[in-house]
C-alpha cells in the first residue's frame, strides 16, 4: 500500500492541474464548475492519501468537510447559472463582465 503513495499523489496533482486548466481556459460556466469539482476532489484524494499514510483521521475528516462545502457551493453556483440563463443571456463567462464597470 505504501508503495502506491507517490502514485496517488501524482494522480491527485494531475487531476488538480487538469481542473485548473479547465477553469482557466473554458468559457462555459458549467464546465468551469465541473473543473472546480475536479480540483476539489483532487485535493480530497491528496488529503485521504496522507491520512492513510500517516494513520491519522484528520485528513479524512477534512475530506468530509470539503465534500460538504463543495455540495453547498454547487447549490449556490448552479442557482447563479440558472439565474443568468433565465435572464436570457448566453452562458459565456467572457461576456459576464459587468463587475468591471
Amino acid at each position, binding site marked *: 500500500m505504501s508503495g502506491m503513495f507517490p502514485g496517488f499523489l501524482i494522480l491527485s496533482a494531475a487531476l488538480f492541474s487538469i481542473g*485548473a486548466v479547465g477553469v*482557466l*481556459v473554458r468559457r462555459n460556466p458549467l464546465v*468551469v464548475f465541473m473543473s472546480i469539482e475536479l480540483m476539489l476532489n483532487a485535493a480530497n484524494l491528496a488529503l485521504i492519501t496522507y491520512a492513510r499514510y500517516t494513520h491519522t483521521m484528520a485528513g479524512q475528516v477534512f475530506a468530509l468537510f470539503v465534500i460538504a462545502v463543495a455540495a453547498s457551493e454547487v447549490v449556490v453556483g448552479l442557482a447563479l447559472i440558472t439565474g443568468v440563463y433565465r435572464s436570457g443571456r448566453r452562458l459565456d*463567462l*467572457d461576456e*459576464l*463582465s459587468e*463587475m*468591471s464597470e
Partner: protein
Amino acid sequence: MNPTLILVLATIVLGLPTAGFLVNALSAGRLPKKVVAWIGPGVVLGAFVATLVIFVAMLERPANDRGITVVLWHWLNTSVASAGGVSAQAGFNANFSLRIDPLAVLMMLVITGIGGIIHVYSVGYVADDPSFNRFFAYMNLFITSMLVLVMSNSLVFLIIGWSMVAFASYALIAFWYERKSAVQAGRKAFITQVIGDVGLYLGAFLIFLNLRGPNGQLLHTVDLQTIFANVGPGSHFHGGLGPVGGGLVTTIGILLFIGAAAKSAQWPLHTWLPDAMEGPTPVSALIHAATMVTAGVYLVARFHPIYQQAPVAAGVVACVGIGTAFMAGVIGCTQYDIKRVIAYSTMSQIGLMIFAVGVGAYSAGMFQLFTHACFKALLFLAAGNVIHAMHDDQDIRVMGGLSRRMKWTFVCFTVGALALSGIPIFAGFFSKEELLSNGLALGPAVPWLWVIGVSVNVLTSFYIFRVVWVAFRGEPRSDHAQQAHEAPPVMLIPVAVLAGLATVVGFLNIDFAGFAPITVFSSFLQPVLGVPRATPSDLVGGLALLVGVILSVGGVGIVWAVYGRGVISRELIPQRLPWLYQLSFNKFYWDEIYALAFYRPVGAAARFVRRAVEPDVIDGAVGGIRDAVATLADDFRTFQTGFLKDYALVFFFFALVGLVVLGLKLT
C-alpha cells in the same frame, strides 16, 4: 438595628418608586388613569411607610450608634481575597452601598413624605392631561433619583443620583413639550445643572486622587464614610487632603459648591429656577421647592468634614448664600407671576440655608430645609389651586378677591405665608431665627452677614404678603377671578395637611426642658453633623430674635400700609428710586448679562466659523480626501477586468508562488 432588616427596608424604599417608574413608563399609556392614579402616589407613600419603619428602628438605638452602612450590590470590585497562597489585597470597589444615618433618614422622610403628599395632589392637578402616566413616570423617577442621591454612601452613586435628578427635573419642566417656553426652560435648567455637575465631578475626582490615609498612603476610595473619616480633624498631619485651609481642600470645597450652587439655584447659577416655573405646579412644589433645590444644602452638610478643613471655601459658601438670599428677596418684591414670586422666595430661603451650612450651623440649615419643605410645598400647592381656578393664568394683577371664593385655599396660603415670613408659632419662625442667631455666633464677618440675613426677613414678608393681598383681597379684576371656584378635595386635603405641618413642625426645635442650645431636632442630627461650634449668648440671641420678628412683622405692616390702607403710594419706589425698581423688576439683569457674556459671543463665533472656516477648511479637507480616493480608485480599477479567467489566473499564479516559497523554505 439589624443590618438585614435595614437592607430590606432600604431596598423597599428605593425599589417601590423605581417599580412605579417602570410600570408607568413601560405601560406607555395603556393602563387606565385610575390604576396610574393609585400606582403613582401609592409607591411613594409605600416608600414613606418603609422610611418611617427605619426611622423608628433608628430611634430605638442609642444616639451615637444610629448610622449603618449596608451594601445593596457589589460592583467593580478589584480586591483579592486571600486564597491558595495568594495574600489578600485591598483594591478598588464602587459598591452601591447605602448610608442610613439620621441625616439620610431626615432627607428620606422629606422626600417620600412631602413627595407623597404632592403626588396625591398631582392626581387632581393633572387629571385632564392626556400624558397622565408620563407625568407619574417622571415623578416616580425623580423620587428614585433623589433617594439614590441622599442614601448613597459612594461618590459614584451620589453622582449618579445627582445627575438623574437633573434629568428628571428637565423632563418635568419640559413636561408640556408643545409649549416652546417650557422646552427652553427645561433646556436651560439642564444645561445649568450640567455646569454644576462638572464642578461636582472634578471635586470628586480630586478627592479620589488625593485622599491619603493615616500613614500617608493614597486611599483611592469612593466610600464616603472612609473619606470623611480621613479628612476629619487630627488626620491632617499625615493624610487627608493636606493641611487645614490648604489649596487642595479649598479647591475641592469650592468645586463641590459649584455643583451645590447649580442644584440649589444660587448665584451665579441661579437663573434657571424662575424659568423652571413653566413646569406643572406640583413639579414646582416637589422639585423646585421641597427636595431637589435643597440637595445643594444636603451636599454641603454631608461633606461638612471637608468644609471644616477649608474655612475659605466655607466662607465663599456663606457669602454666596447670603448674597443670593438678599438678591432673590429684592427681585421677589416686584414680580407679578405668582409662581415666580414663590420661586424667588425659594431661592432666597435656600440662600439662607446655604449661608447656615457655610458658617457651620449645619443642623440649623437642615432644620430650615425641613420646615421650608413643608411650607414652601404648601405655598406652591395653594398657588396651584389658584392657578387651576384661574384657568392657568398666573398673573396676580388679574386676580383679586379670591379669598371669598376660595376660602380654604386662602387660609392655607396665608398659613404658608406666615410660616415663610417667620411669624411666631409658625414653622419658619423657629428655623429662621435659629439659623440667623447661629449665623450671628459663628459667621466669619459676623455682624455684616447677619445684618444682610435679617434684612431678608422684611423683604420676605413683604413680597409674600403682597401676593396675599393683591391676589386674595380686593375686588376681582377679571372674569376668571370672578368665577373662580374652590379646588376639589384631592387637591385641597394635601394642602390642608401641609398647612398643619407648616404650623406645628417648628416646635420640634424647642427643647421643652429649657432653652439649651441642643434641641430635639439638632440632637437627632448631632451624631452626623456635630454640635454647633458656638451659640450666641442668651442676651444677644434674644435681641437678634426680637429684631428678626420685628422686621418680619414690619414687612407685613408695609404691605398693609401700601396695599391695604393705601397710606403709602405704590408708586413710591418706582418714582423715587426708578433704578432700584428696574433692577429688581428685571431680575438684576442676569439673563441679559449672560446673553451678552456667553450667548452672543459664542453665537458670533459660530457664525464666523460657518462663514470663514467651514467652506475652505472643513469642506476643503473633506472634498480633498474624496478627490484623492477617487483618483486612486481610478488607477486601481484597471485591475478589475471583469473576466473570471483573469482573476483565476492571478489566483493560481500567486498560489504557485506561495507553494514555491513554502517548498524553498522547507528544503
